[in-house]
């Protein structure tokens, strides 16, 4: 086909109501522009300021040994330094090393990544959770909770204020979520939504099994384990003044992991038995980032940040003292997930803009993929948009 002729034809195509559309759009754009809060000068110029600061610090380092300390300090404060990740990383996500699908959220919305690496955007959602067999996704944005198919078809939606931290029960019949500072539970078909009570801003955790038993951080302090259908508290686990930041059940429902952030750059992991007795507790140096129980057994993958480095550990929940550093790297790690077969760990390395697939039984095998931020934010600026791993679920 003659390309010039095609271009002429495309240019001659007038979309409907071109002028009207332009006027309407301008009104919206103008209003949005008027309502935006201009970024203060120092923030708008953060990158040049950071670059200048690092330059000055580098000079100082060259001149004197104490200057090296300045460099570290500046890097720590700036925190957005792009680090070099695993070499020879694949430039795009061509496939997953194990069966299953990965649920991801980014500023562009929620995405499902299939085993062959294909990505499907589900819509403009901020957080998401798999249903137990991966047939549905529970997704939330601002004031809405929705159940979607993995193709993005909305089955139902529910309007509630400030919805976040949704978790689908292992039975498939309930979704627990936070609405503002309240814990609520709704049936898997979107009916029977009800308030459970005030809760802290920590994602609730369903105990594996057919019964609907939920662990959540009660606003009054203790971690509460509740049979939600009868609204009956089974037990509570007090943990002193430190507030929990994450709750995770082991796959056999016999262990509840409670991560608590402590002052002084430390965190504590507590392991509670099925009857509410505290079995283990250990304080770790560093800042807690994420934790995930393996799909079988009592191993826990833990991500922490210590100084300028981050670490992925695998910890035996039954002792907490058997720890294996699986991977250590400069900058920030974001989150971790186990493959459904338990053989791989997926680690987000935000500072390097990489995902690392780590063979959990053989740490020498690492598959890296880089350029995640642009892949999940087409059209974005590529900064500060690293995708969050919401879960690696069952083969579809």
């Amino acid at each position: 086909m003659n390309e010039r002729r095609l271009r002429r034809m495309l240019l001659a195509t007038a979309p409907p109501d071109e002028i009207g559309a332009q006027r309407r759009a301008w009104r919206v754009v103008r209003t949005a522009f008027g309502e935006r809060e201009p970024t203060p000068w120092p923030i708008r110029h953060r990158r040049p300021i950071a670059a200048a600061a690092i330059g000055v610090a580098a000079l100082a380092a060259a001149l004197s040994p104490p200057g090296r300390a300045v460099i570290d300090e500046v890097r720590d404060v700036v925190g957005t330094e792009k680090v070099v990740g695993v070499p020879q990383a694949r430039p795009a996500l061509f496939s997953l090393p194990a069966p299953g699908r990965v649920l991801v959220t980014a500023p562009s919305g929620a995405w499902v990544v299939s085993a062959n690496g294909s990505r499907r955007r589900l819509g403009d959602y901020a957080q998401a959770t798999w249903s137990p067999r991966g047939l549905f996704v529970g997704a939330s944005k601002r004031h809405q909770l929705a159940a979607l198919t993995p193709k993005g078809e909305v089955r139902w939606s529910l309007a509630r204020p400030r919805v976040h931290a949704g978790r689908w029960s292992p039975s498939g019949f309930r979704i627990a979520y936070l609405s503002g500072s309240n814990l609520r539970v709704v049936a898997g078909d979107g009916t029977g939504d009800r308030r459970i009570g005030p809760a802290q801003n920590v994602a609730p955790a369903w105990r594996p099994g057919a019964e609907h038993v939920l662990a959540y951080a009660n606003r009054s302090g203790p971690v509460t384990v509740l049979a939600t259908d009868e609204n009956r508290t089974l037990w509570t686990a007090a943990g002193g003044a430190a507030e929990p930041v994450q709750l995770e059940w082991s796959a056999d429902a016999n262990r509840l992991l409670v991560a608590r952030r402590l002052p002084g750059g430390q965190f504590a992991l507590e392991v509670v038995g099925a009857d509410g007795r505290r079995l283990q507790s250990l304080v770790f140096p560093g800042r807690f980032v994420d934790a995930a129980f393996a799909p079988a057994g009592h191993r826990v993958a833990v991500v922490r940040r210590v100084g300028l480095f981050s670490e992925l550990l695998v910890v035996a929940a039954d002792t907490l003292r058997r720890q294996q550093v699986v991977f250590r790297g400069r900058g920030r790690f974001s989150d971790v997930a186990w493959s459904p077969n338990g053989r791989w760990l997926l680690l987000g390395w935000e500072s390097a803009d990489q995902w690392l697939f780590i063979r959990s039984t053989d740490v020498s095998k690492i598959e890296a993929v880089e350029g995640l931020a642009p892949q999940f934010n087409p059209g974005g600026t590529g900064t500060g948009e690293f995708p969050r791993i919401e879960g690696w679920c069952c083969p579809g």
Partner: protein
Amino acid sequence: MVPDLSDDTGRTPGDGPLGRSRAYSKRAMAGLRGDELAWIRGAQAGSLSDLEALFREHWPRAYRAAYLVVHDGPAAEDIAQESFLAAIRALDRFDRRRPFGPWLHRIVVNRAIDWARARALRAEVGDAPLAAVAEDDRPSDSFSPPVVAALSELSPEHRAVIVLRHLLEYTPGEIATLLDLPRGTVNSRLRRGLDELADRLEGEGR
């Protein structure tokens, strides 16, 4: 002559910038960069008139590109509008060394592809009554010349590369960057899309 954005009287499609055909390739951007830099700087500093200049410059092609990918006027309007809003939200972080057009088109075309894919999926699960309504609501023939009808038979991905190449005049390398695709994929989509388009247009003419 440019459309008056403040009133509802007067102009027809084809007036002013709506009818212009400046391409977005690096070559063609050269003359625009000086003005555009000033507009972006001004808009970042809060100048409404500079924002309006940017909008006037880029809206017509953004809307037209979205329309040619999704073949639905209201959806194209939403996509182009949302893309501008996204651009405004990120304006303070925008790197002024980069041209604005490709950045905007990347957002527009990717959103348009997503929308077209989602619509195809919805159709799969059966929207017969809605399809009948949509049939009645289709744009009139004056807005659907043969090229649009032929284009609508292609997949969203093929439509997108054809629109980027032949309406906005990006090079295959630039399209590969915009869509995060290997250059070979862009070339093969272009070749296949053009072949299919030619077949369909010839079929129309028989």
